[in-house]
Structures are given as C-alpha cells and as structure tokens.
C-alpha cells in the first residue's frame, strides 16, 4: 500500500492500545463509527474515551466493555433522548454490583479549550465559563485562576492529549493531508493534541486535488499515522454532501439500548459478526444507502492565482 494507507484492522491493531485515551471526534457530523466498531471487534480494554458528545458510537463501545472512563461535555442521543447503555454504567440503581464508569465532565467550550491547550502545548486554557455553577465542584480539574494582568478571575481547564485521535473526513491523499467541509467541530484541535492520528476518509485523492484547494485542509499529513479509506464509515451519522444521517437508526437505537440483551444482540449482528465496514455496507444494502444521498449544492470555485 502506498504512503500511510492501511486497513482499519491494521490501523487499530497498531495504533490503539489497551489503557489508551482515545478521542473519536466529530460534532454529530463525521462521526467515526467504523473505527469505533473495529475497536469493539478487537476487544480493546480499559480505554478512556474522550468526546464532546459521546453519541451512539460511545454508547455502543461502552456497552461492549472497551472503556473504564468517559470524558465529555454533553451526554445524549442527539435529537432522540438519552444514551441508555452509558446511563446503566453511571446510575447506581442500574450499576448494582458492577463497575461504574468513571466520568469527567466539562462544558462544550471547556472540552474545545482542553484540546486547544493540548494542541498548542500549553499547561492550561483560560475561559469565562463555569462562574457560579456546580461544575468545578463536580470536576476539580476545572479551576479558578487570577489573571496575571488584572484583578479578574477566570476558569482554567487542563490540556487534553489523547494517545489516539480518530477523525472521519471527506477526503485525504496517501500522505494523510486531510480536507473537510461542512461542520468542523474540534477535529483539528483534537488531532494536533494527539500522540497518534488515524484519518478515515470517504475518498482517497491525488495530492494535486489537495494542493488545488489548500484552504480546505484541516490536518496535514505531518501529524497523521494512518489513512483508512472506508466509504460510509461515518454511517449512521452525516457526511456533508455525501450522505444524510440515517435517522431511523438513531431512533431505533433508543429501544435497543434500553435493553441489555438487545444491545448485545445488536453488537453481535452488526459488529462482532462482520469483518469490517465493507461487510456492514453490504448488509445495509445499496438501496438503503442510496436513500441517504442528499441533493447537490456545489460551491463556486475560487482562483488562487499562479505566481511563478
């Protein structure tokens, strides 16, 4: 295989280790479901999972037993309700004698600030959040600090440096130069903050395609360890311009995840029982995937000019 292009199986086997802190980012858009499923399939253990919105993918991963801890800022099935498998690991009435999931929670800006501090090699990031809330008491890593320049106080959050960050994107070249359009979330910050980076793309393109539109590059190949080409790898979440959210699945996950046996059966049918995303895509079927395709809205093009 040329450059950094590899399979999901090899990327996860080589780059994700038991006990790692793993961030699969993407703010309800471009969620790396295929990477999450491979982590489940390889039965990784004791992970700390970081993500602003854990979403259905972390509900599945935590149901599968890969994680001991969750770092997050908003815990829900977006537009649908709660994350039931995760709640079963948090609420004492459900945890019973089992092992509770350790949680460390922030606000959205707090999580973004943590990745930004991690990416910029700073010891903390200040922000005007958390005043008069119970969040600093719930999470002692959120600390009040005095400005060195005035009498003002602000709150600080520590850097978050994942061992591995996974980003799903529309396209990259073999060197890992990665382009995204649509919502950008905090993928750039999470990638620069990480020790190792896996990029999963809908499409592998020539370097010339990247160089023709450098403003669209959010992650340079410089910090990328593996490029995995997996069309529909973000299903059932959205990829701008490529496919819509499979909203039926998000709705169906609610009753499935309320029942532990149904949850484990789903994992058997759609994760353990398949050898990768290609098999998952085949199982979904072409007609179903075609129904998720949005209409077309191309951008105009800009002229970068030549300056020889």
């Amino acid at each position, binding site marked *: 295989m040329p450059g950094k292009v590899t399979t999901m199986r090899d990327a996860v086997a080589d780059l994700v280790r038991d006990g790692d802190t793993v961030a699969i980012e993407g703010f309800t858009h471009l969620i790396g479901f295929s990477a999450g499923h491979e982590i489940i399939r390889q039965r990784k253990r004791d992970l700390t999972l970081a993500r602003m919105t854990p979403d259905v993918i972390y509900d599945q991963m935590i149901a599968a037993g890969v994680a001991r801890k969750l770092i997050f800022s908003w815990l829900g099935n*977006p537009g649908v309700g709660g994350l039931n498998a995760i709640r079963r690991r948090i609420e004492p009435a459900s945890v019973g004698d089992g092992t509770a999931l350790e949680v460390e929670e922030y606000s959205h800006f707090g999580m973004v600030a943590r990745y930004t501090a991690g990416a910029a090699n700073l010891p903390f990031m200040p922000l005007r959040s958390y*005043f008069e809330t119970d969040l600093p008491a719930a999470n002692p890593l959120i600390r009040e600090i005095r400005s060195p320049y005035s009498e003002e106080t602000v709150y600080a959050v520590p850097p978050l440096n994942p061992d591995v960050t996974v980003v799903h994107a529309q396209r990259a070249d073999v060197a890992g130069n990665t382009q995204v359009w*649509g919502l950008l979330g905090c993928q750039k910050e999470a990638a620069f903050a990480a020790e190792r980076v896996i990029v999963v793309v809908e499409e592998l393109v020539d370097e010339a395609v990247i160089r023709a539109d450098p403003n669209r590059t959010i992650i340079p190949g410089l910090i990328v360890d593996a490029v995995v080409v997996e069309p529909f790898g973000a299903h059932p979440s959205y990829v701008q311009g490529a496919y819509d959210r499979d909203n039926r699945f998000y709705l169906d996950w609610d009753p499935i995840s309320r029942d532990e046996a149904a949850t484990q059966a789903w994992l058997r049918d759609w994760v353990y029982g398949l050898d990768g995303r290609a098999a998952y895509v085949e199982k979904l079927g072409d007609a179903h995937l075609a129904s998720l395709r949005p209409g077309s809205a191309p951008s105009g093009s800009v002229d970068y000019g030549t300056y020889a």
Partner: protein
Amino acid sequence: MTGVADDVAFSKSEMMIVAAARELAGQRVCFVGVGLPNIAVNLAKRTVAPDMELVYEAGVFGARPARLPLSIGDPTIVTGATAVVSMFELFAFYLQRGLVDVGFLGAAQIDRFGNINTTVIGDYAAPRTRLPGSGGACEIAINARNVFVIMRQSSRSFVERIDFRTSPGNLGGAEQADAIRRAGGWQGRGPSVVVTDLGIWHFDETGEMRLDSLHPGATLDEVRETIAWDPKISPSLSPTPAPTADELRLVREELDPEGIYTK
C-alpha cells in the same frame, strides 16, 4: 387542543412556540438549539425578526436551515449559511466576545431565579437520573446578552431548589447576580424570559420570575399546580394573543410539517 384562532384550533406546544417567536422581535443575533427553540427562532425570522442571524453551536453563523435539523450538527445548517467556523471560534469569538444577543436554554429543573439544572437528578456522585450535562448551556447562560428559556411547566421541573446548578440564572437574586456578573466580566445580563405551555414569565427587579401573560385556555390554578413555589403573578396580567392563522401555517407547513415538536 387549547384554543381557537381565526377558527383554527391550536395546541399548547404551538402556542408556546409562537409566544417565544414573538419575544424575539428586534433581536439581531440568536444562538439556537434544536427542537422547540429551533422552530421558534425560525418562525421569528419569518415574522417579527427577518434580519436575525442564526448561530448554531456546531460552528455556524448566519444559518438558513431548509429543514428542521435532526440534530445540532445537521448539514442543513451549513448549506447556504454565511460562515462555518470551528467550535473554538464559535464559543470564543462569537459567544464569549459578546456578539450573541439571545441564547436559548431548556431545563430539567429551574428555580424562581432562573438557575438551571441539566446535569443530574439526585446526588451528583450517585444520580437517580443522569441527564445530558452542560453542553454549551453554562457558556450561553454566562455570555449570551439575554437568555430565553422554553420549557413545559410541571412541579417536577419548576422546583424550589435545583439538584445541580449547570447554568447560572439570577443566583440568589438580582442584586447579587448583577454584582457578580460585573465583577466577573460576564457578557450576559441573565435570564429575561421563560416561555411555557401556560404563559410567559419575565424577571422582575428582584430577579424572580413573574407571570406577565397567560395563554388562551390556561388558568391560574393550572399555573400554581405546576410550580413548586408560590409564584408572583403580575397585577397587570394579560392574555397571550392566540396564534394567528399565518403563524400556524408557517409552523405546520414549513417548520415542523411532521408535527414532531408541535403535536
């Protein structure tokens, strides 16, 4: 159905959405959430606030969603927008910088001073019910110039004491809250309105919510039964004008054609 406008029946949810939209008259920049706020804000843009800019926390300024977003990160908020920005820019340059006039919040619990809980019911370390948490709510509460709350009334949610303060409102009262906001450099002035399925509450000079308007079909008994404290009722309490046929048409035909939030 709660009442009849121009011979058209409407639901409590529709009244709540229409009332919230009208409160947005004259506002310039609004930080939108999914669900009820999204419908209210998009209705306001088509009626009382045509120049309003819609900001979504996923990183969009000047959104023009063509459909009801399925989640806060729906690509429909991107196509046709003025700008897509990183979430750092959204929270730092737009919200913390003070460019947002109105931010919408929902609540699992709210107290008389507009302090909000969306984190846990019960003890934090051993919760009876684990709720979503802050998301961007605590930032909106602190740094949006005005906070609008939209939620249904029930004595389980309008409580004397919230279990966890996720988002600060008027704290223990207006005087204390104003002093703390000034000293802390907050951009926000705190909560300004709570729109419910029964009426419209504004905050009086003490920082406590006061019922100023009662929706058609709702009664004061109903209001008192769905609130855990003895609420302040404005001496000049007025009836909320029923939704117009045009407002109902926009909600039903354009904004929530499947009736997901308005039934």
